[in-house]
């Protein structure tokens, strides 16, 4: 028993001393928040831990709201927010991580090539409910919408300046994959999803297509160069002066060393 304790002590002290920058006493970091960012942040944390033995990064989800609340209450060192901060959240510091575009999708066989913002608004408010009214075939429109609280929903509402209760959906989905499967299975459907996820699915042969918005093609490339209008930032947030370890992890997450991970999760790295 004593021997085990001794080994533990020896191992932990060697980790501490091996950890360079000296002043680091808090070797554990807690990150909570957006379920959109969490898978990406877990990968980044794994890579950081490999390079810095002795550091434990705990990534938990629970939504952007939880991330912000936890950082404020100092339960978490870093919060994840998959949207810009609101006016009443300006007490926190934002560290942009990546971007995610939200694009309109329809079935691949749909003849419609593009829609104006007015047409999209009319479709979602059930003022237009057949594709023939837009020059397409005589096919009822199935409006695929997201559940309340989802960040993509908020981006969509803000883009078209629609109040959520005025929308008349035919189907409400949870996450992006469910939205894509629903549109792929229904020739008359229209919905909106994360562009990166949609691009990956289109490459895999899923029968959907992304519609351009304001004449800008919906792609990760146009999100990256900032020309695509409907996009959202993926942010890390902190309160007050972050610990040296937190600062180091944030700097690592913002560096080029993790751009491959960001692309793997279908997000868009920020270009300086």
């Amino acid at each position, binding site marked *: 028993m004593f021997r085990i304790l001794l080994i533990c002590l020896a191992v932990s002290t060697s980790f501490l001393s091996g950890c360079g920058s000296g002043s680091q006493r808090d070797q554990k970091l807690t990150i909570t928040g957006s*379920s959109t960012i969490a898978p990406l942040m877990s990968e980044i944390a794994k890579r950081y831990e490999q390079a810095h033995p002795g550091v434990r990064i705990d990534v938990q*989800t*629970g*939504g*952007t*709201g939880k991330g912000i*609340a936890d950082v404020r209450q100092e339960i978490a060192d870093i919060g994840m927010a998959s949207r810009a901060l609101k006016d009443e959240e300006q007490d926190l510091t934002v560290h942009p991580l990546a971007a995610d575009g939200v694009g309109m999708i329809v079935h691949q066989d749909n003849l419609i090539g593009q829609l104006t913002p007015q047409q999209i608004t009319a479709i979602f408010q059930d003022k237009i409910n057949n594709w023939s009214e837009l020059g397409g075939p005589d096919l*009822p429109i*199935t409006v695929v*919408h997201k*559940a*309340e*609280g*989802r*960040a993509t929903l908020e981006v969509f509402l803000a883009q078209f300046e629609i*109040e*959520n*209760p005025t929308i008349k*959906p*035919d*189907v*409400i*989905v*949870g996450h992006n994959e*469910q939205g894509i*499967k*629903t549109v792929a*299975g*229904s020739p*008359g*459907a229209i919905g909106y999803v994360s562009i990166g996820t949609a691009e990956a699915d289109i490459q895999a042969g899923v029968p959907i297509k992304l519609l351009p918005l304001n004449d800008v093609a919906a792609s990760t490339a146009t999100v990256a160069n900032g020309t695509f209008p409907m996009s959202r930032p993926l942010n890390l947030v902190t309160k007050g002066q972050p610990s040296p370890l937190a600062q180091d992890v944030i700097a690592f997450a913002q560096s080029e060393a993790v751009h491959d991970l960001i692309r793997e999760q279908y997000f868009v790295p920020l270009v300086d």
Partner: protein
Amino acid sequence: MSRSLIDYLLSWFTRAATILAASIVLLVVGFLIQESLPALRQIGSARFFTDESWHPLSDRFNLVPMLTATLLTTFGAVMLAAPLGIGSAIFRRYYAPPRIGWWYRRLIELLAGIPSVVYGLWGLVVLVPLLSGLGGSGQGLLAAILLLGLMILPTIALSTDVALTSIPAELIQGAAALGLGRWSIAWKVAIPAARRGISAGVMLATARAIGETMAVLMVAGNVVEMPTSLSAPIRTLTANIALEMGYAGTTHRSVLFVSGLLLMIIVAIVVLLAQLVQREGQHE
């Protein structure tokens, strides 16, 4: 160890187990009440039934369409699965040749073991496009009923099978000795004798149908509206929690616990009703 000591220890062990099991249920209920209290205080229980719609972020909290949807899908699924399940169990016990009966039973057990997400995925990819031929998106009340019915079918079939097996052999032999045919033995002797076991199985299946979440979420359309037709999209109370919990802020979160509490009350009512039905059966 003397026999009385073993009995003594066992009696205390079983008492402890009982108290533990009961307190887990009470803890869950207590937790639900504690988490829903802020919403109940702030919003008041009446508004969950009188608000104009369910838009928690816009301060509208009507749960009635979801309550209706939960009851309708459960009722529909049980109406579909009970005759099929009981019928298939009777077929297996009294009509099927032994070898086919054996394989049939393995097949039903396999059906019972399929995870609900797999049912949901199959529903979304196969069932829904089929139903969309009838109009609408295909996601809606009918899809939910069909899928749920399929999911609870093995529960009813297997519990009926067990109930039929546990009937005293003398009863069946006596009926056969009286010259009754297979039809009369099955319907007039076996089913009434196995009635309690069968109704327990149906109750278990009903509770499963009420609580089922993932599969229904994937095929029901999830729009919160009073269903007006079989193809209308619906959202059940369970799907509501699964859809919104991950993204809910404080009040919204508490409101979701209220819908969980409502769900718990429905299940409790179902259990009590089943008890009443069984007790009536005893008096006959």
